[in-house]
């Protein structure tokens, strides 16, 4: 029985995705968490998505994950960020009702057969013969399993800091877990510390809303999930903008010595893109004020999240400086901000399938790999679940390439570059950014969705239909020729666009600046009946075809090395022309493809050539002997 069992340790955003995949793949899945009531908790900000993150939520959804549909169902404000910028860098963000999010996710998990939600604390891993064969619980009991996926977030040796108060914990009010990371360290894993922080939560009634500026969501809703309805289910709310003042900064500066970070109590590295207010005040001394958004944590709670003001200053200092922020003069704090420091495993120790290189059947996903963010965690959890399942099914592992998905960029970055700070996804991390858009997620990933087979048949059919429609519409517009007759040119004059001199495709007219896909109808091309999503994706593909071609050309050029798979356990010391450092790096990371090897820091282009030569000559030798 245990040969069909997969254990997932931790039920955060990574854990729930991992467990859901394994169970739906037919494995007897145990999702172990120390607090069943905290499944899929949004520990920090109340939003899912954002730039590059929204892209990943859509990718997870198309492949069959859960995050998107739960975010849609519990959305209380929707925004498409960068809506004025080009399509590749627009990102959807849903602010969610936190409690409902967690409850909805749990309810969804409970509908999945083969999945057991289990409250308990894993104390250690059962590893024998370099293979993970189960876990031991705190009470000493042993649960055998074929694979174990660890998604413990900030809980491994977690320490919470508020001023000089230092307590053990993974999240406020919840105990840390000990044991696993110590065990990993003992086995020779490179275990390091990271730090992150969260702002105070405020009582709604104690805020003077009249001096803040309301920020409403978008009218248009673009759900993440193919399963979601076209309109949000819940009432939509506003957030409120306000700012810190000089006085705020003064108080913070005066009390810096009481910050655990500045007092040297915290050794972990914090995220540069999410600095505490202490950091902001110190590093950007000249800035007169910093913006902050007051974000409701839900419809039925009076908690307000103070975005952008994460802090680990002592409570009395927090009380003082918060009251200098406009609108917060009489604020009552429900929960103080704090920093959390936790163990993570330097991620170059896992392979592209999220499995540790040194222990078979042991998978890591989420913050334990040095990432931050719900979406980054969910993406890894999903992929770890997929690969743990595929391995037990003795099937080819699942790997997304950098030009196919942000999820591919994420994993590739982690396993080749590692990370020194909490890793967050940005659009600028994707060299094929113009291809990795939200609008074409289904076009990019349909093949993989079919292969993974996690969707209901009707959903896959719908996806196929959408992809077919997309291609059909693009083809139609590329192939329809508009002739330079009076009728066509009158339309163009009306549109203040140059008249036609010679026949042109409808697509080339759409490509003109200032025109969009809807002009096609004026030239007699029927585009009625295509849904909004198809019109969007077709228009974008047509308008940016020049750039898309250039990126595709580049991918073709690269495919030669990108697709060249490296044999497992290749003996790099026998490859001539590699430096000692390169041999060491390549041996420890064991890249899957030559392309991946080329992205390892410290591995030079010449080394890639040397490996390529080595492989080619090695492959030929047996033939020569014949």
């Amino acid at each position, binding site marked *: 029985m245990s040969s069909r069992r997969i254990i997932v340790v931790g039920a955060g955003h990574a854990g729930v995705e991992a467990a859901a995949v394994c169970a739906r793949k037919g494995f007897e899945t145990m999702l172990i968490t120390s607090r069943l009531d905290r499944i899929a908790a949004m520990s920090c900000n109340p939003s899912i998505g954002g730039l590059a993150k929204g892209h990943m939520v859509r990718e997870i959804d198309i492949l069959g994950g859960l995050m998107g549909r739960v975010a849609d169902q519990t959305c209380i404000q929707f925004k498409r960020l960068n809506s004025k910028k*080009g399509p590749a860098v627009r990102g959807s963000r849903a602010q969610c009702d936190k409690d409902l999010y967690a409850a909805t996710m749990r309810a969804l998990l409970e509908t999945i057969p083969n999945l057991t939600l289990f409250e308990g604390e894993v104390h250690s891993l059962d590893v024998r013969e370099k293979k993970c064969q189960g876990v031991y619980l705190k009470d000493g009991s042993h649960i055998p399993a074929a694979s174990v996926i660890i998604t413990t977030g900030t809980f491994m040796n977690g320490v919470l800091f508020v001023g000089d108060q230092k307590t053990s914990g993974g999240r406020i009010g919840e105990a840390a877990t000990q044991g696993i990371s110590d065990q990993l360290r003992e086995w020779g894993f490179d275990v390091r510390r990271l730090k992150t922080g969260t702002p105070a939560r405020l009582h709604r009634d104690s805020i003077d809303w009249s001096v803040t500026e309301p920020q409403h969501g978008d009218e248009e809703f673009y759900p993440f999930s193919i399963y979601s309805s076209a309109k949000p289910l819940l009432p939509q709310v506003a957030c409120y903008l306000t700012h810190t003042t000089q006085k705020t900064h003064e108080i913070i500066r005066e009390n810096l010595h009481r910050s655990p970070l500045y007092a040297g109590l915290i050794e972990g590295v914090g995220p540069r893109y999410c600095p505490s207010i202490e950091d902001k005040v110190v590093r950007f001394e000249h800035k007169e004020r910093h913006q902050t958004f007051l974000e409701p944590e839900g419809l039925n709670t009076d908690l307000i999240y103070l975005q952008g003001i994460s802090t680990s200053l002592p409570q009395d200092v927090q009380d003082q400086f918060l009251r200098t922020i406009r609108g917060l003069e009489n604020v009552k704090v429900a929960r103080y901000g704090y920093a959390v420091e936790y163990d993570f495993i330097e991620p170059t120790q896992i392979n592209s399938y999220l499995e540790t290189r040194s222990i078979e059947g042991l998978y890591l996903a989420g913050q334990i790999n040095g990432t931050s963010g719900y979406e980054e965690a969910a993406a890894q959890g999903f992929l770890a679940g997929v690969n743990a399942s595929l391995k037990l099914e003795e099937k080819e592992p699942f790997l997304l390439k950098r030009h196919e998905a942000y999820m591919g960029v994420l994993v590739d970055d982690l396993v080749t570059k590692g990370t020194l700070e909490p890793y967050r996804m940005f659009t600028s991390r994707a060299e094929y950014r113009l291809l990795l858009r939200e609008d074409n997620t289904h076009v990019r990933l349909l093949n993989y969705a079919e292969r993974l087979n996690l969707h209901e048949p009707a959903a896959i059919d719908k996806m196929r239909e959408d992809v077919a429609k997309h291609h059909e519409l693009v083809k139609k517009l590329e192939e329809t020729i508009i002739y330079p007759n009076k009728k066509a040119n009158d339309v163009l004059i009306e549109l203040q666009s140059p008249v036609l001199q010679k026949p042109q495709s409808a697509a080339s007219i759409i490509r003109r600046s200032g025109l969009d896909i809807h002009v096609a109808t004026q030239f007699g091309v029927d585009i009625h009946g295509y849904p909004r999503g198809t019109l969007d994706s077709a228009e974008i593909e047509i308008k940016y075809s020049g750039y898309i071609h250039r990126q595709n050309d580049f991918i073709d050029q690269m495919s*030669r090395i990108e697709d060249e798979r490296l044999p497992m356990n290749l003996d790099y010391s026998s490859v001539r022309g590699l430096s000692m450092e390169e041999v060491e790096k390549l041996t420890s990371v064991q890249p899957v493809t030559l392309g991946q090897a080329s992205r390892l820091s410290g591995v030079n282009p010449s080394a890639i050539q040397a490996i390529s030569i080595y492989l080619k000559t090695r492959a030929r030798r047996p033939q020569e002997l014949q």
Partner: protein
Amino acid sequence: MARYRNDADTICAQITPYGQSGVGVIRISGSAAVQQVKKLCPFFPDSPESHRAYYGMAEDPATHKKFDEVIALYFKKGKSFTGEETVEVSFHGNPIILNRGLEILVQSGCRLAEPGEFTYRAVLSGRIDLLQAENILSLIQAQSPRALEQLTHQLQGSFSKTILEAEHETVALLAQIEANIDFAVENLETLTRKEVQGKLTLLRKYCEEVLLKAEQARPALDGLKVGLFGLPNVGKSSLLNALIGQDRAIVSSRPGTTRDRVEAQLLWEGVPVILIDTAGLRNDAEEIEELGIAKTWEAWTEVDVIVFVGDASRELEQEEAQLLSQIPEHKKKIVIFNKCDQRKNLSSPLVDFEADIFVSAKTGEGLDVLKQKVLESWGNQTQEDQGFLMRPRQRQVLSEFVAGILRAENIALREEGDEFVAFEMHEALAKLRQLQGKDVGEEVLDQVFSEFCIGK
């Protein structure tokens, strides 16, 4: 070096040492070798025999001007040094001719081989093993003169610094654009579109300046090309002969292989000078009529200095006046009047008695002044002020960078999305990295974090 070589390209390079020699050889290797060579050597058969030499004239496919007699040796796939289909074309060993041959090949679609690439391909194809390849490489390296290596080092140092500066500037600007994309909700004080465009323009001009200076410095490597232009009877040939005969430091002198030009390579005060006696311009009268005078001048882009030769024994002819007045402004020009021993009073307003030089090929009068003027026209550049000696590959890559930045500028001007400006800049940045043999890292993000106050 490029991050990855594309092994599918057909590549070419000179495989004999640089400088003058009896014979200079260009090797073309790759699946399109025969096709590419045919553009340069039209006499080359479609299906040549391996290890057979073909004799004929090399010509410029654009103008059909023949410029050297050559022997092209064909090696079929599997029977060549690289293992690929290969042609080796032997030219006369003049760097000008060989560079011209390479330029034509590159224009026809060949890529210049990276250092060691032929050997690399030989290894790839299994012709030799890595050990042999290493032996070949060390052999080649051991032969290179130490002094030259030293000079190369020095040049690389200062050149790298210049390119590094452009790279820093590109990264800094990209950081601004990326911050604007990835942290749109942060309300950052990033550059406006106009500022971005302005900075791009500065960056482009900076590199254009480098290219321009390199172009000016090029004669130190290839020789300063001085063209003698004028109607047939003004005495260009005797002038050329006088200049050659007077000079003791002749490096070589031989008739051009094309029907209408004669070249001589001289060394004037340490500066290599290539004197080109162009055909009498009137011989091309039909061509002039067809193309217009401006085009006629453009056909001589290779010439660094135009020496326009008039005849002091007669008034300017109308045709001469036309040619003279239409010399492109960006060209360096020197106007001389030959036969000053038979000088008449010239009345044309186009004659500048102050600036123009009166010479006599017969008596040798004024030739020193002419030489001085030619050298001055190149500029009395001090060592520091001199542009970089760039290899054609470097010039090509840097030009591609400039072109990419120009595209980015235009996108910024048209107010299209930041991500497209970034796209062009990333591509351009990769060119700079290619120039330096570096990889693209995470610098852009690092810069974003160091410059902006960001907090989700």
